[in-house]
């Protein structure tokens, strides 16, 4: 069964169409890498899936429920249920600067799921250990490096036990030497069969960790397939052009 299903998604800012008739579905355990030139609509697509942006047409059905059906949104409650099982990791981390690492992790499950403190404490310790930051549990975000902040952000998203995790260019605001530690955590999640959609510019990561690559261009899915198909034997000319330009950099 699909964790998320997207049909004929359309979105425009004014008369500029940023998403044009996008359809795809993601099955449990899949890792989708979304690649493409900037301005191709990758991030907007991701933000629509978790209801940070509204679409103008099409449907989004998640395992939690229907978010939007043929351009019509259900109520606030239904939207909340549809996105409840999704987590998101942002390019800018967006940790809460007023809370230390541990409280960043525990805030949402404590308030939203009303979980007991000892259960939260256990899961918090396990997840910090998983991202290699058990020793930073009482540090405030401002004292952490970008790579550490992003790993905390991943642990924070995992605290809500999502069925689908969305990554919006998780390494794009990091110094090159810090991207490895973040990608390693995502790779590890992929190995554990966590369902993920990762918008990324890291072709090496897409090749190794993704089960499927979606290439977006000018608001459309231009090409889609297994990493070795899309990255090594692209059928479309624009995919070839894009891959050549990223290799040059």
């Amino acid at each position, binding site marked *: 069964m699909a964790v998320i299903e997207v049909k004929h998604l359309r979105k425009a800012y004014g008369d500029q169409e940023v998403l044009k008739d996008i359809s795809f579905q993601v099955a449990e355990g899949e890792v989708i890498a979304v690649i493409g030139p900037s301005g191709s609509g990758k991030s907007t697509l991701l933000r629509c899936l*978790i209801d940070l942006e509204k679409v103008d047409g099409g449907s989004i059905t998640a395992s939690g429920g229907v978010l939007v059906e043929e351009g019509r949104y259900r109520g606030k409650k239904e939207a909340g249920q549809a996105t409840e099982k999704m*987590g*998101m990791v942002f390019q800018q981390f*967006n940790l*809460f*600067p007023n809370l230390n690492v541990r409280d960043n992790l525990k805030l949402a499950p404590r*308030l*939203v799921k009303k979980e007991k403190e000892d259960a939260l404490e256990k899961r918090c310790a396990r997840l910090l250990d998983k991202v290699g930051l058990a020793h930073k549990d009482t540090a405030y975000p401002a004292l952490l490096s970008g790579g550490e902040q992003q790993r905390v952000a991943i642990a924070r998203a995992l605290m809500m036990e999502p069925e689908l995790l969305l990554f919006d260019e998780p390494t794009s605001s990091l110094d090159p030497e810090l991207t490895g530690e973040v990608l390693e955590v995502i790779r590890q999640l992929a190995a554990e069969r966590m369902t993920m959609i990762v918008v990324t510019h890291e072709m090496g990561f897409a090749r190794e960790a993704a089960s499927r690559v979606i290439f977006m261009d000018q608001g459309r899915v231009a090409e889609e397939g297994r990493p070795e198909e899309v990255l090594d034997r692209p059928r479309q000319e624009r995919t070839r052009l894009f891959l050549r330009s990223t290799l040059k950099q």
Partner: protein
Amino acid sequence: MAYFTGIAPFLLEGAKMTLFLWALTLVLSLPLGFLVSLLVRSRFRPLVWLTEIYIYIMRGTPLMLQLMFVYYGLPFIPVVGVWLRFNRLTAAVFAFALNYAAYFAEIFRGGFLAVPKGQYEACQVLGLSRMQTLTKVVVPQMIRVALPGITNETITLVKDTSLAYVIALAELMHAAKATVSRDSNPAAYVLAGLIYLVIVFAVTLVFKKLETRYRLMEK
């Protein structure tokens, strides 16, 4: 020196009233200002306009005029005027609280604007309600940004209480002026000035402590 010790008790009586007016104004205007800053952010446009007009009037007219209007002017309003006859202290607190709430509201508004959009988005994807987002994430960050401005206004308020002199409230300035007139000796002004300095020094110290604590929390 003997003259100073002689007039000190009377001036300190006035200082007590000054402090009382200062504290009462703060206790009322800080929550009121916070509420106003929330109303300005409301999605209901007429409410936003009303609060903006309120802020405009409070910031656009002299505090002394507002003080006189509340004490001398309100009782002359037809029909409801009889109910608006306040004693001096009530009138002063009323005018000061309304005026300072407007300034505090603007400071809080600036603090709210300093909280990045990404913080709201992180809260949304984690499933926090609007109320939880506000109380647990946005307000703590907003206060840290607003605190220096709040400190500044709080110090200004210590000195602004002297305006209550125009409605003859028995605060420090009033006591000093009365003493100078009675004794034809300006020494009372000097003593009053010293007392204001001591109060401001104490207030500064307290807020410095608060600011460092908020900064420590994030570093």
